[in-house]
């Protein structure tokens, strides 16, 4: 039997146009043996959810540098709930003030990685979450 590979969607929601970080993460996850899909810039939450469904990913990682992480993440969680999707693990990275981390986790986000988080930490958090 072929082994199951972890499939990750690296998504850039909203208006921010900085994706250096998202690309670095995407390549690091690939190097860690995962199958990574990158959405490209300026996606709406609806588009991101649609891609996540068609690609049947295990993990959705939002990369947000615009400061809009709270409303964007809330919208994503609401959309997933509306469509009855419960099996995807959600991570958020980017410019995230530490005071917002508990708020994001309360919404159901699995892990938050502010800029400067070691890549190894991100990889092991994703692997651990998918095994659950």
């Amino acid at each position, binding site marked *: *039997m*072929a*082994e*199951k*590979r972890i*499939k990750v969607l690296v998504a850039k929601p909203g208006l921010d146009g900085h994706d250096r970080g998202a690309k670095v993460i*995407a*390549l690091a*996850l*690939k*190097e*860690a*043996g*995962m*199958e*990574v*899909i*990158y*959405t*490209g810039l300026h996606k709406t939450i609806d*588009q991101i959810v649609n*891609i996540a*469904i*068609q*690609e*049947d990913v295990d993990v959705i990682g939002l990369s947000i540098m615009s400061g809009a992480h709270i409303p964007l993440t809330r919208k994503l969680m609401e959309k997933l709930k509306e469509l009855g*999707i419960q099996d995807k693990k959600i991570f958020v990275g980017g410019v995230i003030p530490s005071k917002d981390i508990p708020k994001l986790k309360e919404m159901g986000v699995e892990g938050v990685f502010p800029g400067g988080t070691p890549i190894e930490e991100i990889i092991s958090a994703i692997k651990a979450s998918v095994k659950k």
Partner: protein
Amino acid sequence: MNPNDLAERIISGDEKAASRAISMIENGEETGFEVLSKLYPKTGTSFRIGVTGSPGAGKSTIIDRLAFCYGKKGKKIGVIAIDPTSIKTKGAFFGDRLRLKNAEKIEGIFIRSMAHRGFSGGISKAALGAECILEALGKEIIIVESVGVGQTELSISLISDVVITVLTPDFGDEIQLMKAGLLDIGDIIVMNKMDIPNAEEKAKDIIHYLESIKGEISVPLVKTIARQGQGVELLIDTLEQEREKKLKEEKENKEKIKTLVIALIKEEMEKGIEEMMEKNITFNDLLAQVISKKLDPYYMARLVVSNILKNGKLEETLG
């Protein structure tokens, strides 16, 4: 999950069910294959377009434009983009969606990325299964993009009705073409990026080359500037013409299915044999003799295979 339910949900247009079933086939899960067995007899009416060509030739951009134009005509589109699996890490990176910006706007389009996961020939083992599932989901045009690496690209033609090979005017010289073997596969050659210098001349070179190798069989060449959408309508007309022609080639179509099944049998056997060998005493004995140079590797391989073919397994003692 019940395969009957899953198949029913796919036929009723449930994208979640379709995408889950594709994953199951990718991961080799039994349920996925059961779903496929139910759907396969109902398929065969969609138009499956394979797209191959060297990296950077514009395959994704061509697909984007094709999907967009077919979509505007009211067709329901599925796209399967196959990318390489890293040999070192087994990971994969899919960037195709960045090029499918126009296609993404088409309503009801289903785009799925697949890593080829080591299957020989530039397509993924699950690609045929994914095609069937997308057809059952109601897609009329299914475009498959293969890993762009020349020579080993034969398998794309096994799971496509018509194959497009995308080239650019900077393909190099005739020797490069002969080496790459790309022109042996395509039913249609697309010369993309016709806006770069000397493009017309290079297109003529290709036409001469095609005439010299294919004799009377003419492979049409379509010139495009995909980024601007130029030539894409002509490409669609050419695709439809080739499709008509192909439908009449009964013998070739049977041959294709045979080759495909043999490729799948080899793949299945490879897995089975690896498992069989791992703990086999005879295998390890012989291997030790090869390592110590008492036997040579060819001798061992031939001995093992003839034994398996005769007995269905590798005997404990070889006569």
